[in-house]
């Protein structure tokens, strides 16, 4: 899908990014904690690829419990940030429903859809809060 910004996604709407605890968590000796890798906040590398997310409002509108939906498979954790926070970083947020996930969306880079700058990755990390928390893991 070509990158675009969906005007039906409000600034306060939450965008969810799933976290695989076996793959996305690293040891940080500086901070003395286990934390999420910055690699989580990276788009795929195809020309128009973005970062896969789940759009909370779509699930709520369908009467679907978002926390249950994104915890599939059950080992997944997740973080969430507002669409407004992503846009403030120059990112685009849009719908990209797929057969296996009608609530699927994408976050695209502004200048280069498939590449987030360091500032954008850092900004997404700072804007993120746990949605489905992983015990003993920090976001930053």
């Amino acid at each position, binding site marked *: 899908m070509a990158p675009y910004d969906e005007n039906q996604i409000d600034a306060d709407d939450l965008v969810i990014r*799933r976290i*695989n605890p076996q*793959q*996305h968590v*690293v*040891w*940080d*000796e*500086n*901070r003395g904690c286990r934390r999420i*890798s*910055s*690699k989580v906040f*990276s788009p*795929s*590398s*195809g020309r128009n*690829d973005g*970062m*896969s997310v789940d759009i909370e409002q779509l699930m709520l509108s369908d009467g679907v419990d978002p926390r249950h939906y*994104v915890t*599939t*498979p059950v080992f*997944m954790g*997740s973080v969430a940030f507002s669409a407004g926070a992503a846009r403030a970083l120059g990112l685009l947020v849009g719908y990209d429903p*797929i057969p296996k*996930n009608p609530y*699927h969306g994408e976050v695209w880079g502004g200048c280069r859809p498939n590449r987030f700058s*360091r500032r954008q990755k850092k900004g997404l990390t700072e804007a993120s809060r746990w949605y489905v928390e992983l015990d003993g893991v920090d976001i930053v």
Partner: protein
Amino acid sequence: MRNRAQATTAFQGGIRGYEPTVDPISSIFPPQTRVRVGVPRSKWIIDLKDRFDEITSLPRGWDGYDGRPVTFNTAQFAANLIERLFIAGVPTPNVVPGTDGTVQIEWHRNQYDIELDVLGPYEIVAFRRDQRTGDEQELELQTDFTALVGWIDGLSAEQQQEARSM
């Protein structure tokens, strides 16, 4: 085992010892895949052997979306890079797969955050943050990885002691 003095000469004039087409780094033994460094010498690669097998064998959708396993070529290159960057006394890095078959190598130690995002063979976005000064460096590297040697050297216990004594 390579010492620091030897390590500072690594990669000058290209990646010496990296032979992507002839080095039997990878082969497939269904259902598991294996990433192999020709003659693994460093503790890092020995420590990461199972990890590389794991990230190249991830099932489609491993990230809850449409994530793919790390590609063979990328894993092979990353493993060789790790082997060439090895400095005794520096802990084994974290290895994090990307959704798109890429892989990130990272250390968070000695007040430095170092992240080497391996997007493919000879395609690296390297980042270092110095927590003491707030300085950040980001480099897009293709053939000359000399700068990384100095970065990794800064993670060593020896450098840690020097910083403490200042």
